[in-house]
């Protein structure tokens, strides 16, 4: 069978992207557990660990560019590499969110601000869960699964809104905490964006499987106009 070599390269890329995905998932979960426990050692580890994520991202990007330059990919092969490139970038950005949360944990230090632990935990759990499923849908080119995942983003958005109100309330009641509350708002923002990027992965999966370039609508996106 011709082009076995290319298929092997594709398989290798899939393994690498799964590895990058699990590094990123772990980074998000660690960053939130560091924040909850005021554990600066964990926070620093996540912060520094981003370098390894970046490195892997560039290695994958380079491998994809070499395959595009040397293998003349067509049709599904081309969509595969284009989608991989996008997923590679999305994952790296999520890694940046984890790093950001690590940095905020360090900045907060021993702050006595009330961290909305339950909500942030749940956000991380849902966001990472979406990411995990989105990645396996991507690897299996399962567009049906990919289309169902973005709906979970609604819960993440609700949690974000709840955290937003909690933090604004605490800013009002204690203006000395405004800076720290703002930091925590960034944490929530990063987790919310993590779920959004998982949705982007799902869109890439539909593209990969069907060739269709589309945005998967989530109900929260309808609300966005209301907020403007």
């Amino acid at each position, binding site marked *: 069978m011709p082009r*076995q070599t290319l298929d092997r390269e594709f398989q290798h890329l899939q393994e690498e992207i799964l590895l990058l995905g699990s590094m990123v998932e772990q980074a998000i979960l660690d960053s939130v557990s560091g924040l909850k426990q005021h554990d600066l050692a964990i926070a620093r580890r996540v912060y520094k660990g981003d370098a390894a994520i970046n490195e892997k991202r560039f290695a994958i990007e380079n491998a994809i560019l070499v395959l595009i330059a040397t293998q003349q990919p067509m049709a599904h092969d081309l969509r595969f590499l284009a989608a991989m490139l996008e997923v590679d970038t999305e994952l790296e950005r999520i890694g940046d969110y984890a790093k950001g949360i690590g940095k905020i944990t360090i900045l907060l230090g021993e702050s006595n601000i009330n961290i909305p632990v339950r909500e942030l935990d749940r956000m991380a759990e849902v966001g990472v869960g979406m990411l995990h499923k989105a990645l396996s849908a991507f690897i299996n080119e399962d567009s049906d699964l990919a289309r169902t995942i973005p709906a979970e983003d609604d819960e993440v958005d609700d949690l974000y809104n709840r955290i937003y109100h909690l933090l604004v309330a605490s800013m009002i009641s204690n203006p000395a905490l405004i800076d720290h509350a703002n930091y925590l708002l960034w944490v929530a923002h990063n987790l919310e964006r993590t779920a959004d990027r998982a949705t982007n992965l799902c869109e890439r999966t539909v593209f990969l499987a069907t060739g269709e370039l589309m945005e998967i609508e989530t109900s929260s996106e309808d609300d966005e106009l209301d907020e403007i």
Partner: protein
Amino acid sequence: MQTISSTAGEVTSRELRQPQSPLVTIKGEPLPLTSSKFVLSDLAFYYGKVQALAGISITIPANHITAIIGPSGCGKSTLLRTLNRMNDLIPKTRIEGQVFLDGDDIYSPNVDVVDVRRRVGMVFQRPNPFPMSIYDNVSYGPRLYGVTKRADLDQIVEFSLQQAALWDEVKDKLTQSGMALSGGQQQRLCIARALAVEPDAILMDEPASALDPIATLKIEELMQTLKSSYTIVIVTHNMQQAARVSEFTAFMMIDQNRAGTLVEFGETAQIFTRPKNRQTEDYVTGRFG
């Protein structure tokens, strides 16, 4: 350069005799001395008074596929033929510089040309099976080199055809004429024939240009499986093919005197994503004018 001074004492390893280009790297690491198959040093070649190659120095790594690309007439085939002294067969030709094969200068006077051609096999553009059976096509070389026992020949024929990914297609018709096979099968038969004499290296001059795309991809896949045991050097007009199959690429062009020169040599991934030389960039992007 290839003579060992007496002060070198016991250190008479082959590597000492051959010059080594320090530029060859594999994934950023310098190529170990022992893993070069051919080392060309300041090679020049003349057809009569016409200089076809000038100043070519290149190290070709062992057990890898190296592609030679460049515009028509830049000397790719000529360079390839210097690697097993095929050019000797063309009258009034002359070579300067050295070609080392595993550390031995193949142009030094005491060298057995027949042995060089056994160690370095060749596959041509048009499949050229001998007008005899498939079996005889493959066993011809080994017989020439002294293998006589039928059982040994049987084994060589099967092994070579298997290595050439042709065995399953022909095992029931070994006595049929090699000419009766399809073009792609004929080319794989020629590869089996080259493998039958246990060469170290195989030179291929546009081995797929007479084949359809599927037969071409089969040859390309075959090259991938062969490279663990052989060093392969391929000349191809088809830049995409060079990109697909090779790990190292040499880009040649003619200089102001119309002699072929080496413009850039490097890992194929590098040549096709970030060539160092402007002329290479223009050529691989199709802007060559």
